[in-house]
Each structure stands twice: as C-alpha cells, then as structure tokens.
C-alpha cells in the first residue's frame, strides 16, 4: 500500500502537503506553547485588557490631545496619527520634488543633470538612519538657543527648540463647522471625479464643479455664522524658559521630515524618470511635429501614458515611506513604534504590543495595495 502511495503522483503530492501543514502547525504550536508557559511562569499578564488602563507616560508631541491619564489605547491612537501625519506629508513632498528631480535628470543642461545625478547617487547609497541622524545633528548644532532665536517673520521663531509659528484658533460651535467643512470637501471631490464620466456618458453641460464650489462656500459660511465661530491668532512668545502659545514643529519632527523627504525624493524621482523614459520617442516627435510645445507635450501627452508605468513602483515606494517612518525611534519622534516600545517597557506585555504594531502596518499596507491595484486596473491599457 505504501508503494502505491509513493508512486502515485497525486497521492504523493497530497501526502507531502499534509506533512508540510503538520510541520508548520507543529512548529508554531510549539512556539505558542512555550510562550504561554513562560508567561505563566514569570507572572506576566497577557491579553488586551491593558488597553484600558491609564498610560501615565508622556508623549512629547501629537496631533490629537493627549494627557498622561489617557488610556494605552488612546496612546496607540496618538502614535498611529503621528505616523500617518508624517507619512502623508512625506508622500506629498517627495512626489512633487521627485517630479522636479526627474525633469532635472532628463535635462540636457550638464550642470543641472550632473548635480541631480550626484544628489541621487549620494542619497541612494547611504543608509536612511545615518541620514536621519545627520539631519538631527545639523538641526541641534546649527540652530541658535531659545533666547537667541531667529525670527524671519513676526510671530515665527526658529531655534533649537523647534519652529514656533502662530496658530489659528477657532472659538464657538466648532464641531458643526468642521462637519460642514468635511461635507463640502467631499462634495467638491465627488464633483471633480464624477464630472468627466457624466460629461462623456450623459453629455451633461451643467457646470458641476463650479456649483459644487459655490455650495461649499455657502455651507461653510452658514455653519460659521450660525455657530458663532470666530477666529483668532495665537502668537508664540518667549515667557520664562520657553515659548508658549502657537504651534510648533520640534527638531525631531523636522529632522524626520527632512530626512525622509530627501531620501524618498531620490527614489520617487528615479521611478518617475523611468516612467517618462519608457514612453516611446515617437510620441515626442509626433507631438512636436504638431507644433505642441515641450512643457505641454510632457503634461498632456507623455505624462498620462507614463502614469501607467509609474503607478505600480510608486505604490511600493509609498508603502516604503510609511514603513520607513518607524525610524522615528532613532530621532525621538513619538510615532507608533515609539509608543509601542514604551508600552512594552511599562507593561511587560511584549506580544500584545508587537501584534498591534504589526497589525496596524499590515492593514495599512494591504489597504494601500488594494486601492492602488483598483486604480491600476482602471488605468490599464485595453489591448486589442
């Protein structure tokens, strides 16, 4: 019977697969068993109950309001928003600057393309951590102390404590105001996205975008008036030891932002450049023979075709940016990995903390991949 199994290809396949599953399940089960035994022996609590307890550790900067009596769950939320905030900013800046770098590299001017190449090679061949630490060091060394801060504009102060600038403070019924702002933003975006389709399919001639903008302005104005919303400027001033009031960008945040933007621009630039290069030369020639100028050629003819080629590697570059933001640990910016590390230290619950960290990043990665795949399929060439 055994030789029958052995020589039958299908049965052999199923046998091997069963053994593989047994090995994997067995291995993972062994690890989980040991972990459980070790946790019980060492008296470390397990489970996610700690998320409701008070965190008691401070977080130096955050978008959301955070106090040490808030729960660990809220601290994680603060960490996630910090990560997303930095990532979105870096994605925006690096895409725009990457386009500039791509054009610089393609330029026929030897100095411009030469300096772009030098920048690219230096950035791509040094580790990101070294670059982040370098920028943090430059900021701490080069900036003056708080007492002798630079003040390029009134109310704006640049010192080793960070960049302080005035903050717009709203008073009154702000909740409905922000709801109105959000609704009008969605309305305008929907109008912009739906207009080409509606125009093409139904021959609509109604000025959708302009009316959406007008409606948005009216809605926001009404909400502001009804809610009695007033705006004032909170200007930072040196009181005692530090600046109070206003908003601030700390050196940690700035170093992380600058370092990540410089690093990602290099890679984005290369992706955009290879996309533009991949468009056949015939497109350029046909366009210029029709009398279209170079800039319009790039914007209207070449770039839309290049977008198809750029999109997949650009997606992985964006995901890479989000993952690289975990290096905030090296400069001390409180992103999710920093909060997780502190929580593990305070509660001893390493498994739960790391599971949360991995879960958040996997969710973000998979979501972005799915969205980009969807957009990619819409852009795909319909072949004959």
């Amino acid at each position: 019977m055994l030789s029958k199994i052995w020589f039958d290809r299908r049965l052999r396949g199923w046998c091997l697969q069963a053994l593989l599953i047994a090995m994997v399940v067995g291995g993972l089960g062994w690890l989980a068993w040991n972990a459980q035994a070790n946790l019980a022996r060492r008296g470390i609590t397990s489970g996610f109950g700690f998320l409701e307890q008070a965190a008691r550790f401070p977080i130096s900067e955050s978008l959301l309001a955070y106090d040490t009596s808030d729960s660990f769950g809220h601290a994680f939320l603060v960490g996630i928003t910090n990560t997303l905030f930095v990532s979105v900013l870096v994605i925006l800046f690096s895409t725009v600057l990457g386009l500039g770098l791509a054009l610089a590299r393609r330029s026929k001017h030897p100095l411009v393309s030469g300096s772009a190449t030098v920048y690219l090679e230096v950035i791509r061949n040094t580790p990101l951590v070294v670059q982040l630490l370098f920028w943090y060091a430059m900021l701490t060394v080069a900036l003056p102390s708080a007492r002798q801060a630079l003040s390029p504009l009134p109310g704006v102060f640049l010192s080793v404590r960070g960049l302080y600038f005035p903050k717009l403070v709203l008073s009154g019924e702000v909740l409905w105001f922000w709801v109105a702002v959000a609704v009008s933003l969605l309305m305008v975006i929907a109008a912009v996205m739906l207009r080409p389709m509606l125009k093409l399919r139904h021959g609509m001639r109604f000025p959708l975008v302009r009316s959406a903008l007008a409606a948005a302005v009216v809605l926001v104005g009404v909400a502001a008036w009804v809610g009695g919303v007033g705006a004032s400027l909170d200007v930072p001033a040196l009181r005692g030891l530090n600046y109070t009031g206003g908003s601030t960008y700390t050196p940690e945040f700035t170093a992380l932002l600058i370092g990540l933007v410089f690093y990602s621009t290099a890679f984005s630039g290369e992706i955009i450049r290879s996309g533009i290069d991949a468009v056949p030369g015939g497109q350029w020639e046909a366009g210029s023979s029709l009398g279209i100028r170079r800039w319009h050629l790039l914007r209207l003819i070449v770039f839309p075709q290049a977008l198809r080629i750029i999109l997949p590697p650009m997606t992985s570059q964006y995901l890479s940016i989000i993952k690289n933001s975990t290096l905030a640990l090296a400069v001390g910016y409180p992103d999710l990995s920093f909060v997780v590390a502190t929580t593990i230290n305070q509660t001893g619950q390493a498994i739960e903390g790391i599971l949360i960290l991995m879960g958040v990043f996997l969710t973000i990665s998979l979501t972005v991949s799915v969205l980009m795949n969807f957009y990619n399929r819409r852009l795909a060439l319909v072949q004959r």
Partner: protein
Amino acid sequence: MFALKKICALLLLGAAWSAHAQTAPDVVTSNTLEQVRARGHVLCGASQGTVGFSSPDAQGNWKGLDVDTCRAIAVAVFGDKDKARFVPLNGQQRLTALQTGQIDVLPRTTSWTLRRDANGLNFTTPNYYEYDAFMVRKDLGIKSTAEMNGASVCVQTGSTNEVTVADLSKKLKLNLKPVLFDNNPASRQAFFSGRCDAIMTDASALASVRASQAQNPDDYIIFPASGNSEALTPAVRHGDDRWFDIVKWSFQVLIAAEDMGITQANVDSMLKSDDPRIARFLGTEPGNGKALGLDEKWAFNIVKQLGNYAEVFDRNVGMGSPLKLERGSNRLYRNGGLMFPFVFN
C-alpha cells in the same frame, strides 16, 4: 526520486518531533542556578555607560556599583568575580531583557515599583537609595522645581522619571515639556547642546554625568525634583525562588560585612574570630552555604574579592571616585541611613 524520499523522511521526523515537543513542559519553576552553572558565567544587565554604576573603562573592563553587585553573585556561584558578563541595555530594553530571559539578573539602577513587581519581576534588596533630580545650567537662575515653569526636560523613556515629570507637571501646574529619548547618550547630548532646559534622572547619575561629560562642571546645578526617594534594587524574574535568594543574600553579604566591621583587608584574620555571628557569616561554622546550595565560603570569598559595602561604595561612587557622592541614605542604619543587614543564621 531519492531526493523526494529524503524530503519525506525529514518531514515525517519533523512532525514527530514537534508533536513530542508539545507534550513537554512539566517544569513549574525554572532553574536559573543550573543554567548559570552550565553556562559558566552570570549574565547581568548593564547600562550603556553610566560612570560609577556600570561602564566599561578604556580596556573594556566593566566597573561600577552595579557591576560589583553582579560580581558578588558571580563569586557566590563560581568563586570567581570575573565570571560575570555584562550586556549593555538601554532604558527601554532592560526590563524586557530580564523578562524574556536574555539576562539572569538586572542590577542596573532600576527602581522598585509596584507595576514592575507585579509584572513578572522580583526585587531582591536595594543596593542604592536614590532621589530624582533636575540638572540645569546655573545661568538660568533656577534653584528649585517650582521655578521650572514651561521648561523642556530631557528624560529617558522606560524609566520612572518619565512618569515623575508628568506627575510634577500636573501637580504643580508647571507645563513641563518632556523630550523623550530611548537611550541615555542621546538624552545627555540633547541637554548639553541646549535642546532641553533641564535633564532629569537619578541624582547620582546626574552627578556622574556632570563630572564626566560636562565641559565645565561648575556651570551646572543639581537639585531634587519631586523630593521623593526611590530604592534602586537588583531584580530577577518571577518563578525561581532559589535564584532570588542567592541574589538577595549575595548583596546582603556586603552590608552585613560592613555592619560587623569586616573589610577586605582584615577578612583573613576575621576567620579566627571568637564571635559566633562572624563564624557563621564567614562559613567557619558551616550551614549557610548548604542552605543556599552554595559553597560554605561564599560570603568569605565575596568580602575577600570585593570588600564590604563601604569599600564598594567608596571605590565606585564615593570619595575615592570622580563622583565624590556622600553616603546619605546609603549609610548603615546605625549611622542614620537605610542599609539594614538581615540575620545570617
């Protein structure tokens, strides 16, 4: 074909082994002493360079109060103070390193707190009583915590100081801005470069930093932060009572030796002492070593190789060291301090 047979055989073996392994754990307590003996040295957590407590010198030899505490354990187990290895850990890693088994004992300036005790650690006996303090530049004109309104404070994550800064800020409405770092060198450099107005950690660590890292030590002033004291205590994992006893009593040897007047110099002559207490302590009258599972001369070896607590203190953080700290609360109870020797019977 033959390769396939080999792969199948391996898979079968692997499945069988993993199934067997799942029935294994029937040990309730772990046996750190056996593991240490098998390994041949004690693994101790150390800091990343706090002069006076645990830092390597230019030749790579570790020196400090916590280092000597660890060496006492090594002498107790092996009879040789060099059978101790030090793993540099930052503030965030030190507790998890102990909990997950990377090190055997953590004598690294760790405060005894309720949550840490409940969360898988057992604290043995304090080796240094400490109060937390701020260090600021003298030219800022600040002399006490109440004047620190709006100050930015460099503090290390994973330490009790993190919580203290937040508590002080709330209680005294100081609006302190913490700047958090995950390692000590970054925290200190940020303070000296002017990123923060003040740095907060244990007063002795600040004295060490001021003596060893400030360009001009007289430019800085150290004052107590919250006025509360903490007990820095070597910690071990839950689940091993024997190892807990050994670590605790190894350090107690140093205090008891000072209490009984035994020093590194006179310990040999003390062997012939008539005092039964000293005889039981030094092992001339056997019993203590056997109770702990150690050699009978374990206490004698510790004092002979390291000295008593006064000598250890003096050599590392006291008047015989660059830090020149006063004993303060770390004196014996007889002299008004908190160091209390238990009974070696």
